[in-house]
Structures are given as C-alpha cells and as structure tokens.
C-alpha cells in the first residue's frame, strides 16, 4: 500500500511572549488511499493544529518549524502559497467544526459552490450548477436545485454542515480533513452525517482524517486511531484493538472514565489532575504527573515504539495487552 499522505516529524510552534508554544511537537503518521483515520485528543492536544498544518493553514505567530508533509511523495511544507492554493480544496479539502463560520453569509450556496469549482479550473455556469446539485443531493439536501439560491442562514445547523461537506466534495479530493464536524450537532443529526460520510468515503475512495475528542464517534467511522496528548502522538493502532486493549495509561484512563464502562450511580474511574498547560509541560512524558504507572524513568521522554505490525505507543510502562 502506498501512502497517500506521509507526515513525518511535524512540528508547529506558536511564538508567544512566554516563549514557543509547541502545539505540535514531532508528529509522524501516514494515510493510505481511501483510509479513514481518527485523530483523538482533548483540547490543547494539538489534533486540530496537526490538521491545519497539513494544509499549510497556520497563521503567524504560528509556524511549521520542522518536519515534512508529503502528498503522494510531493513535499507540502514550504510550498509557495500559490501552489498550496491549488492543492487546497482540489486534492485535500477540509470540513470545520462550525459551518456558520466557514460559509460566507452574503453569498448564496450556489455561488459559493461555483467559486469553489472555478478556483480549480474554468467551468461554465450551467456545468457548475449541475455538478453542485449533484453533490448537494448526494449529501442529503432535499430539493437541491432550489436550495442553490438560498443563503447559509436559511439552512439549519445540520443542513449547513451538509453544505460544507458538499463543498469539500465538489472537486473530488483524495483526502478530506474533518475537524470535529459533528461536535456542534445534535445526536440524531450526528448519526445521519456519520453514516453518510462513511458511505461517501467508501463510494469515492476518499481518505479522511477525522479529528474529534469523542472516542465513540471516531470508533464508528475510522479504521485506525491516533491518540494525541500535549502535542504528541502517544498511541496508535487499529480502532477496535486500541479500544479493547489500550497500551498507554492515558488512553486506558479515558476509556475507563466513560459512563458506559461503569455501574450506574457508582463513581466513575477518573484521571486525576488536569490537562497540562503547553507553557508548563512536565519533564519527560507529559502525562506522567497524572499517571498511576509512573516511575523515575518517566522524566525521560519515551519514544514512540512499534509493537507488532500495526501498533505504536509512547510509554515506558505500557499496559500489557493479551497479544503482547
């Protein structure tokens, strides 16, 4: 399997008065054509910044300070803005959390879709319309032909997110980066969109990076899971394997704290402490102050080590899996 996208040692830092904030600090992973991976972490873990960095959407004071992002072998880091623009929306598209912030409120949906098409090649008005209606219908917008002339505020939140997804699909990208696309939606709408996205990815062979804080959502769409903590990947593997047999104490702690894994009314297993500030990271493993398995060794940053063909973890004292 050739990698569609290969990210290696990616580091994105933000220059602040208190020094460099290492939002993403040495992240490596790859995605095959048509694969859906889940990128999971809490706020400040660097999962969104990773997604933004792939597309070169980091504004000052942020900067990609190291590493590489290769799309089918072509380096994206350091590419001139013009070349990046040709890739954004064409080869890699993005769907953001809040569709009301990504759609232009003063343009009709049809116009925004036409602009997205024209950005990557001349299309006639009629062609643009046909293509737009086709894609809108595909993401489940009823009466798509008439809805083209509507403005974003005339759609509900769920429908707006479908429009954003339709725009992402317009140019048939190879990869869609989805940054918490269902977090702002109700569960019934979330379930609809999850099912549709999964079917679309399968039908078009589109690869996806699904960024979320919700393990259950990710587990229902992705096949491989990457867990991030304080700017680094701390665990990786096939979704079901990681959730069944987490190796990193943080992943295990997160899973144990879910109400589904506790008896109703009894205390939940909790991870003590709070997520560390990126300005004030503990030495070595960033999770060590909250970890019940820590030892003196943990003040040295553990490497991300491979276990078997598919799993990796960054821990000196991993939990022993049944197959380890």
């Amino acid at each position: 399997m050739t990698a569609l996208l290969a990210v290696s040692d990616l580091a994105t830092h933000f220059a602040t008065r208190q020094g460099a904030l290492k939002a993403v600090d040495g992240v490596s992973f790859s995605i095959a054509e048509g694969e859906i991976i889940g990128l999971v972490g809490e706020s400040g873990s660097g999962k969104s910044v990773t997604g933004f960095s792939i597309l070169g959407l980091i504004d000052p004071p942020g900067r990609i300070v190291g590493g590489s992002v290769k799309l089918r072998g072509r380096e994206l880091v350091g590419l001139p803005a013009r070349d990046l623009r040709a890739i954004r929306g064409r080869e890699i598209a993005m769907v953001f959390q809040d569709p009301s912030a990504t759609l232009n409120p003063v343009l009709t949906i049809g116009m925004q879709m036409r602009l997205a098409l024209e950005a990557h090649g001349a299309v006639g008005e009629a062609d643009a319309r046909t293509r737009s209606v086709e894609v809108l219908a595909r993401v489940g917008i009823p009466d798509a032909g008439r809805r083209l002339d509507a403005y974003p505020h005339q759609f509900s939140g769920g429908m707006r997110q479908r429009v954003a997804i339709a725009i992402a699909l317009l140019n048939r990208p190879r990869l869609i980066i989805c940054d918490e696309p269902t977090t702002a939606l109700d569960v019934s709408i979330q379930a609809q969109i999850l099912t549709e996205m999964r079917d679309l990815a399968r039908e078009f062979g589109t690869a996806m990076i699904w960024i979320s804080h919700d393990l259950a959502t990710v587990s229902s769409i992705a096949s491989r899971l990457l867990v991030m903590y304080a700017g680094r990947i701390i665990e990786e593997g096939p979704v079901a394997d990681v959730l069944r047999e987490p190796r990193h104490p943080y992943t295990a702690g997160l899973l144990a704290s879910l109400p589904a894994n506790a008896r109703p009314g009894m205390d939940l297993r909790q991870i003590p402490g709070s997520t560390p500030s990126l300005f004030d990271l503990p030495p070595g493993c960033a999770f060590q102050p909250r970890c019940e398995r820590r030892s003196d060794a943990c003040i040295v940053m553990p490497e991300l080590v491979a276990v078997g063909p598919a799993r990796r973890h960054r821990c000196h004292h991993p939990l022993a899996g049944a197959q380890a």
Partner: protein
Amino acid sequence: MNALVEIRNVSKRFVPRLSLGERIAARLGQPIETRTVHAVDGVSFAIRKGEVLGLVGESGCGKSTLGRVIAGIHPPSAGFVTLDGAPLLGPDGRKRTRRVQMVFQDPFASLDPRIRIGETISEGPIAHGLTTKAEARAYAAQWLAAVGLPADAADRFPHQFSGGQRQRVAIARALAMKPDMLVCDEPVASLDVSIQAQIVNLLLKLRREFGLTMLFISHDLGIVRHISDRIAIMYLGRIVELGPTEAVYAAPAHPYTRALLDSIPKLVTDSETLVSFKPITGELPSPLSPPPGCHFHLRCPFARSECREIVPIRREAGAGRDVACHFPLET
C-alpha cells in the same frame, strides 16, 4: 416518596420584541406576524425528594428553559411550580427562596471575572443570613473544601482556574446557599473528557453527603444514564416519556426515545461488527411553527393519521413510567 418539587402544566412562551419599523407598521394597522416560541408547552411532573431526575433532549427542545423555570429564573407563562407544596415564586413573580440553586453549562460565563472566588461564593449566603461578613472567609473555605478546592482559592480570580476547577467553584457557589435542590444545566458539556468524570463523581458525592435532589439536564445520554434515577425525554417543548432510567434505556416506549438511543455512537471494540446507525430521518422542526398533533409525527416511522391531528396525552405505561404516544412501543 414525597415530591419535593411539583411542576404543574408549565408553559413558557417567548414573544420577540417588535422592531421600531414593525411597531410603526402595527400602529398604522398593518397585520404583524408575531412569532411566538413555545419553548415549554404544558409540562407536568414531580421531582421526588432525594432523587436525580435526568432531563434529556436535543438543542431547542426547551430543556434549558424548563430548568430555568424550575430554578425560578424565568417565571412561567402559564402553570406553576411548587416547592414542598408552596409556590416557588412570590406574588411579584420573583423567587424568594434559596432552596433551589442552579449550576450552568459554561463556567467561563457564569462566574464574574472581576470578583474573587471567595466573594462570589459568600455573597448570596450573606444576603440570606447564612453567614456574616466577618465569617464569610471561613464559610467560603468550607464549601471550597467540599468541592475539592484549597482554601486559598478564595483569594483568586476565575481566570486563574482551569475549566474543571471553575465548574467546581460554580458548584460551591450553589451549595453555599444550602439548597435542597440543584438544577444542573449541562454541567460537564464544556469540559474535557478526562475532566468530565471528575465533575460527575463530585456531583454523586455531594448528593450522598447532602441528600441533594437534582435535576440533571444534558444531551449526553451516557452521562444521564449514569447519574439519574429517573429520566424525562423532551421533544419540542413537551415531555414525551418519563420513567426509571434503566427501564427506559432497556425498552423505550416512545419512538423518539428509541431513535435517540439508537443514534448514540457506541465504542467499537470488535473490528468484525460494522457499526450501523438507524438515524432518525429529517430534522427537528422549528419551535416557531411546530407541527400539529404529535410533534414527532413527521419523523416517526410509526405515524398514522391520528398522530397528525391529535396531541397525545402523557399517560401511565406501567411500572412508574409514562409516555405521550398514541402507539407506544412494547416495553
């Protein structure tokens, strides 16, 4: 068990204020469409002493508005709320009692950024004579300790705390009023996953220690199941189902409840099973113009002609449960 709080036929309508242009037009005799939102529409139920009642629904269903009516923040447009048999609100429509307190979703918005934590906590109790200015410091420290914060937190400002710690402060502020009942509106929704369990555990502990009665409002069905004794499901301003939590989760009686439970993504730990959702079709109708009859009929796979015309009355479905549906599911 005795009811602590009774909600009788409570409705809450919001009528948007007309703009200047619309007011002029109305003066000139133009018909002006007033768009009234029926946020809560004829809701009745009782909350028993010492129980945790979960209130669940999607955004816009009126669960937060109902919570605020029960906490005495919004006066109801119709119906009334009683606490131990006495009206919650005075004749002027304002709440006089400290016995119902509220914890809000966003601890960044619910704490005054310019007031020290100690003062935030002791302000209400001083006004209600629970403590004095001289003893306020010790009083605040006592409640900070109850929520697991150090006494010196009293001297700090909200911005010096993390989200989880702020929510602890908000809970301490509510507890310091020595309430019988706590209305918690999405208390963990804005917190990180690893912090949510801490706050849920804190609420469980406080319930045991102080014998608190709680209304726990949330859209997170997993957390509600964990914390609630009984659960009420709300759809477009009405309660569609109410009953003991485990019974409702095991066998929902209302098609909406079942659809909602089917929509929750579950952790997949077996790579062989392909997850299949049975998503509810369609969208939540606008509360400005809810459909006639049963509000859910447009999205309901079992809807028949009655459902389009007649509003189903909530009635007993056995084992302490009730459901507002013409054709409830077998339980």
